[in-house]
């Protein structure tokens, strides 16, 4: 039952909300409340998983092997918790600033269903179905606001990500063909006996599908256009919640289903990761508006996750999980703050800046620290030097944009009216969470280590 609630609550809420007018604040708050209820249910599930181990159930009372399995382990509950928290904050932010479209709360609830579903499923095909539920709501949400730029961004976003989805579907077909199963555990067991040259093709296809989602170099081309055109809260949802599909996907499929192929292609992944970091940083330095800089920065930051994943082992996986989580928190903070004006906003943005740059006491420091530790474990001097270079570049571009936006007399931040106090307080609260996680990181470190253990131990 604990496993079904995080899925059922937003699902029923989404169907009910679709019939109501989301522009009314009461409906918006009902949506926030339902997502918060799902968050509480997920927290209860997470506590059970952390104390008792993975929870598994087969839907519809079917015997094992016939029905679709739902499975919650330390990795999936951590990502569900993060994603739900991000969605609650972003939706509350949008409700406070006034929703313009009647479907917006329902769409966010549908996206929640898709995201929690794909984190909690143990079946490859239902992973694809939940993935599509989340993506389709994302396509519509991208066009939210209705300005010409947002509509054309929605079209680009939809076409590129649909290509990614179909590529993933082909990979699922191939996996089923060679293993005869869709259950992740079984697939991982049987794939070890399959011809390596076949499996590497499937693994590369899966990686391309998630690479498109993540905006890794060379699949990044759609990302800056979309993130820079949509509304700040939508950009926060896309980069803080939806992009988790990509990181969760590469972690789950890379480390859990295709561990042999991951090890085989580690050096290729490191090269891609380094190029991604440097490319994102260089592009970010040459941009002048905050959304564009943050968009390119989110391309670059994913490179760290990829490198940590390629290093592998308990330390590498833990670093990848931790970095993915902190990165999505940072992006939410930066995107929300970039859309606001007035007192406290600059401070919130600055917390985001030092967190991305990895300066204590912000939480981002521990993300960078863990990735460095993994690189030192790998005993590669070049890698450590390149990671350091990437970190230094991120300080440059972010402080540059901070100065450009908040310090310049007559700059963007100085013009216009101050945003409502509640909005600023909400954004500042996110900044405080980032600071608190930096001052007391033990729970998050323990959670990411537990998640890494799941990946190292392989499927049960």
């Amino acid at each position, binding site marked *: 039952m604990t496993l079904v609630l995080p899925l059922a609550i937003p699902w029923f809420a989404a169907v009910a909300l679709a019939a109501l007018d989301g522009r009314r604040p009461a409906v918006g708050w009902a949506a926030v409340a339902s997502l918060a209820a799902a968050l509480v249910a997920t927290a209860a599930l997470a506590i059970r998983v952390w104390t008792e181990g993975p929870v598994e159930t087969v839907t519809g009372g079917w015997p094992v092997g016939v029905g679709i399995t739902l499975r919650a382990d330390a990795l999936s509950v951590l990502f569900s918790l993060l994603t739900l928290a991000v969605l609650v904050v972003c939706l509350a932010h949008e409700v406070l600033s006034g929703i313009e479209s009647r479907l917006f709360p329902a769409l966010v609830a549908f996206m929640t269903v898709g995201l929690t579903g794909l984190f909690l499923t143990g079946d490859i*095909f239902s992973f*694809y*179905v939940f993935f*599509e539920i989340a993506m*389709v709501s994302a*396509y*519509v949400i991208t*066009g939210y606001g*209705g*300005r*010409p*730029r947002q*509509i*054309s961004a*929605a*079209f680009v976003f*939809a*076409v590129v990500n*649909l*290509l990614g989805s*179909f*590529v993933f*579907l*082909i990979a*699922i*077909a*191939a996996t*089923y*063909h060679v293993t005869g199963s*869709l259950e992740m555990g079984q697939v991982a067991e049987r794939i070890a006996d399959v011809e390596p040259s076949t499996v590497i093709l499937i693994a590369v296809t899966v990686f391309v599908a998630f690479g498109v989602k993540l905006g890794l170099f060379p699949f990044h081309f759609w990302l800056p256009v979309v993130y820079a055109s949509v509304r700040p809260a939508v950009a926060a949802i896309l980069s803080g919640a939806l992009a988790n599909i990509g990181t969760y996907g590469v972690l789950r499929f890379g480390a859990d289903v295709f561990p042999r192929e991951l090890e085989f292609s580690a050096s290729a992944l490191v090269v891609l990761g380094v190029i991604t970091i440097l490319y994102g940083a260089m592009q970010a330095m040459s941009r002048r508006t905050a959304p564009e800089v943050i968009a390119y920065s989110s391309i670059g930051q994913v490179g760290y996750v990829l490198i940590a994943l390629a290093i592998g082992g308990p330390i590498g996986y833990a670093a990848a999980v931790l970095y993915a989580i902190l990165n999505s928190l940072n992006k939410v903070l930066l995107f929300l703050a970039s859309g606001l004006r007035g007192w406290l906003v600059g401070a919130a943005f600055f917390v985001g800046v030092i967190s991305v740059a990895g300066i204590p006491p912000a939480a981002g420091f521990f993300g960078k620290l863990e990735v460095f530790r993994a690189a030192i474990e790998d005993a590669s001097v070049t890698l450590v030097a390149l990671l350091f270079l990437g970190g230094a570049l991120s300080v440059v571009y972010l402080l540059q944009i901070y100065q450009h936006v908040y310090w310049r007399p*007559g700059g963007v931040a100085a*013009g216009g009216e101050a945003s409502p106090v509640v909005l600023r307080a909400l954004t500042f609260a996110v900044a405080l969470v980032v600071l608190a996680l930096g001052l007391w990181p033990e729970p998050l470190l323990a959670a990411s280590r537990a998640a890494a253990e799941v990946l190292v131990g392989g499927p049960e």
Partner: protein
Amino acid sequence: MILLLSAVVAVLFGAGAFLVLKTDLLRVVVGMVLISHAANLTLMASGLTRGKAPIYPLPNGEVSDPLVQAMTLTALVIGFGVTALLLGIAYRVYETHFAVDFDRLAEEEARREAELEQEEVSV
């Protein structure tokens, strides 16, 4: 059979990719439809078995694999929904830009950007 199916999938995917690279939005949508059908056909081909219809109670002898058919059906429905949505977005693009061609959309965008830059300079 497998060879024939893979040839069809290859042609569908290739034609779809060719259309997606065009600048006309409607051609892009049609290209996506072709690629989605390439994926559906791959799903069907992945569990191709000869046998009777797998309806309970199961008949004697070989039955065909029902799972790929169920998956393809699901994928088809998703594909239809997404196609409708893409056409909807394309129509919205037409309504806001009065163009369904990427080249003209890019021109429009460049013009807007130049205006914004002018405003920033004057501030």
